[in-house]
């Protein structure tokens, strides 16, 4: 009897998909495995590879006890193939095949569309590890370093999840695509990652936190919509990935929150009430709130671009095919086919941002992006609570979606963060107030000094309220190998 809840370690590759009985896919994955290990080993500096990191490893897909924590060297992490349990009698949740039994095999007519979506999703997973490869060198604490590595190994596992689907369901084409996922490299001139935002280096820890909060949240929304797929193996894969993704959001939200907390504390301790007294605040070695707003503006708008065009044929095709649903599709009360519904999107008329109705089917991206914005607003509210608690008069805000865009109707147009059109001169003048300048980058960089003592934190960030796995404050999350 196949155990589909607990992870089986009877092959090199931990899994809950009965890999030991699926010789064909096992062989393919075993062939791919060494390339993956090489990719990992070449990525993160060696002394960290040799360090013992307190990581969680999935042992089951049962939400009640899916992970166990222990020290492990990252190259020995048990990456594996884990799918959420199959829901009995699941049906296709949207599109023209609505209500038909979910596909357990790839439908021929959608093979290429599905493969494309899986490859794009798969391409982002290793990309973020590549973008973050040098961050451990400037970790503000062992706690943060551990969180970074946790995020990294889980992104690695998400790559495995996508590669499993490619190997299992897409034959020779799938195996070639899986190889190419290791061939492309973030920022590489030779073979860059597919999406622009995944080719930028993550240069510092505040960027890392912003990235995990904003950009990983885009990833979360994509996974949410793929979790609604009528192709059941993809749905099950993504559902399990989402349980891991929650930790990444947590790292981002608490990372930014702790940075804000520290800034507010230091301002108060030194009797600074004016959040715009930037020179004095920076003189104290913490990150001023206006700069945090600028970083927020940058990462939020870059992440909006990842949702693509407001009106999108590809998204419409994928929804109508039942390949990709909407966020929480099952909770939406409509016909799930959208053949005659409309949805309100932003458009540009006579140089102004206006809202207009378009066929809902073509606005799937926009709807997901709106859900994303709502989701992203939650953490911003909690960050403002921290500022408020310290009695400082400052409020972080998500900028208008017309601001600083490279994709969609607002691309490369001079909108300010309020969504107002400004002149070129006003835009140039406003930019240093709206987005991080090179000087801001220099300042953040100057704070990025490693802090490797257990229980100690860099000056610019507050310690967490609770440790990982409820460990005490001085717990040594990473036993550094300093050969």
């Amino acid at each position, binding site marked *: 009897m196949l155990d589909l809840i607990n992870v089986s370690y009877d092959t090199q590759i931990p899994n809950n998909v009965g890999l030991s009985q699926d010789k064909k896919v096992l062989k393919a994955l075993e062939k791919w495995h060494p390339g993956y290990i090489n990719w990992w080993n070449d990525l993160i500096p060696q002394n960290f590879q040799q360090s013992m990191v307190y990581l969680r490893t999935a042992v089951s897909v049962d939400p009640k006890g899916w992970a166990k924590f222990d020290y492990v060297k990252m190259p020995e992490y048990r990456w594996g193939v884990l799918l959420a349990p199959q829901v009995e009698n699941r049906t296709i949740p949207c599109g023209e095949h609505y209500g038909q039994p979910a596909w357990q095999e790839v439908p021929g007519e959608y093979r290429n*569309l599905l493969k494309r979506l899986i490859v794009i999703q798969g391409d982002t997973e290793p990309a973020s590890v590549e973008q973050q490869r040098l961050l451990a060198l400037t970790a503000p604490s062992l706690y943060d370093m551990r969180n970074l590595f946790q995020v990294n190994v889980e992104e690695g596992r998400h790559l495995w999840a996508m590669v499993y689907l490619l190997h299992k369901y897409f034959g020779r084409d799938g195996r070639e695509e899986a190889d190419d996922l290791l061939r*492309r490299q973030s920022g590489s*001139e*030779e*073979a*860059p990652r597919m999406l622009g935002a995944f080719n930028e280096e993550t240069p510092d820890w505040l960027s890392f936190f912003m990235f995990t909060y904003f950009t990983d949240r885009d990833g979360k929304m994509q996974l949410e919509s793929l979790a609604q797929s009528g192709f059941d193996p993809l749905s099950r894969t993504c559902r399990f990935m989402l349980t891991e993704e929650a930790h990444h959001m947590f790292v981002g939200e608490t990372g930014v929150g702790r940075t804000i907390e520290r800034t507010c504390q230091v301002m108060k301790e030194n009797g600074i009430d004016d959040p715009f007294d930037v020179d004095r605040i920076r003189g104290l070695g913490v990150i001023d709130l206006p700069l945090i707003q600028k970083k927020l503006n940058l990462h939020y708008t870059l992440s909006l671009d990842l949702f693509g065009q407001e009106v999108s044929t590809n998204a419409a095709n994928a929804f*109508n095919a039942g390949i990709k649903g909407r966020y929480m599709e099952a909770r939406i009360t409509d016909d799930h086919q959208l053949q005659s519904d409309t949805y309100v999107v932003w458009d540009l008329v006579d140089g102004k941002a206006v809202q207009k109705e378009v*066929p809902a089917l*073509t606005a799937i991206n926009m709807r997901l992006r709106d859900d994303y914005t709502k989701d992203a607003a939650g953490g911003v509210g909690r960050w403002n609570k921290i500022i408020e608690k310290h009695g400082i008069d400052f409020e972080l805000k998500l900028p208008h979606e017309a601001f600083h865009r490279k994709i969609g109707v607002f691309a490369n147009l001079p909108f300010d963060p309020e969504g107002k059109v400004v002149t070129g001169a006003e835009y140039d003048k406003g930019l240093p107030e709206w987005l991080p300048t090179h000087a801001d980058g220099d300042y953040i960089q100057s704070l990025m000094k490693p802090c490797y003592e257990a229980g100690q934190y860099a000056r610019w960030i507050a310690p967490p309220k609770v440790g990982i796995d409820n460990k005490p404050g001085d717990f040594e999350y990473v036993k550094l190998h300093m050969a």
Partner: protein
Amino acid sequence: MTHRIDFQTDPSRYRHWRVEYDGEIANLYMDVDEQGGLFPGYELKLNSYDLGVDIELADVVQRMRFEHPEVKVVVMQSAKDRVFCAGANIRMLGGASHAHKVNFCKFTNETRNTFEAAEADSGQKYIAAVKGACAGGGYELALACNYILLTNDSSSSVALPEVPLLAVLPGTGGLTRVTDKRKVRRDLADVFCSVEEGVKGQRAVDWRLVDEIAPNSKFDEVVQERAREFAAASAKPSNLTGIELTPLDRRFAEDGSLTYSAVEVSIDRAGGRATLTITGPSDPAPASVAELQWQGAQAWILRAARELDDAILHLRLNERQIGTLVFQTQGDPTAVLAHEALLLANRDHWLANEILHYWKRVLKRVDMTSRSLVAIVEHGSCFAGPLAELLWAVDRSYMMLDEFEGDNRPLAAVTLSEGNFGPYPMGNDLTRLQTRFLGAPETVDTLRGHVGKALEAAEAEELGLVTYAYDDIDWEDEVRIFLEERASFSPDAMTGMEANLRFAGPETMETRIFGRLTAWQNWIFQRPNAVGPDGALQRYGTGVRGDYNMERV
């Protein structure tokens, strides 16, 4: 006329293309202006094109030959990031009338043929440097180049996604060039034409879809290196100086008739016909190629070709109710022959060579025009040399026999030249005379013995050079009745009949593109599976798939 499509443009007016000249190499950048569509209702995203974009490309190619003979290699590339060209704009196609789609495809096909032939005709080799998505019409642009380089960045691919995505064909030569030019094995071609995302990297080379892949980091370098190698290997003389293609002298009258310097187009709307009259040269032929070059675009033999070309294109796109085109000439046949003779005697001179090839293309454009074509050989006409070719391009020809009362013009004659035996082949690679006398090849040899002789009506009819010769008594009625009868037939049946009768003889890639590929495409363009309200082309972009009638016809 609501909106006249103008085929004349010049670099100062380009919105979609840009050329950087670098000695013997020209870098040609496609940079389509999204807002620059010829009609409202669509945006030219991702370097997609419409007729307006192609009119500019045709102008670029033409000027490259005449204004920049120093160029030996043209590198066609995209000025946009991550996309080479996404092909013909789908929303434009979805919104366009059947007639516009057909004419659009014909013109783009002619443009592709023109730059494809530039290597053989003019010593200008086109290289496609493909970075980013190269799909559908984008790959067809590349296919018509003489060499394709693809970057190996593990995402750039070449693709023909028309069938799976739009339920139409890659109709700008795509299917034909894949098998006939690149000689891709047919089963691999079948795979290639059925997958939306296309083929990338080494496989694209293995399947013969591209000539070479290069590492992404070195791509631009490799492209320029190839360009330099090809330029160095070229047999074309160096340091040639071009002539300027000055704006055409062209006036429109209110009734739609048109006057150029050597061509006149009069329109008879009630009769559904246009008469194109070409006037022979009034000046003696240039004494030397140096004088020809000095005259440049003003030389009669080039001027007349440009004007005829523009007139044909104008009538095709802007005068679709005009079903019959009547060709006439007036002038001195010996002068026409003298102007042509200078070119034939100096075929190794770049400009003489270019003008001869240009006449070849213009005459092919006439062959390809889906209207009833007729030549009227009146007294005082000059159907000689290149103009005589018109007699065998048209569907029928009528010639005045003997003297007409009150007409003191010189008697109508047809005069052959050496030009009628080689330099102006049709798409089937035969001369018009070879095609005409397919069943009696010896006639062509006999005719060669008559070169330079003014062949009057009786003899011309006897030799098979014209359809009918009529004297003063019959002339008016016979011509009138023919034209009236012609105008009464179904235009669809006429187009089909004429296209089938015009191109006898062997198949070439060109005839296969204009015959087989175009005919199938035009059939599909009429079928509900593509263009019906629930067809793939109409539904493109809505997210809902085409609803196909699964009956095989």
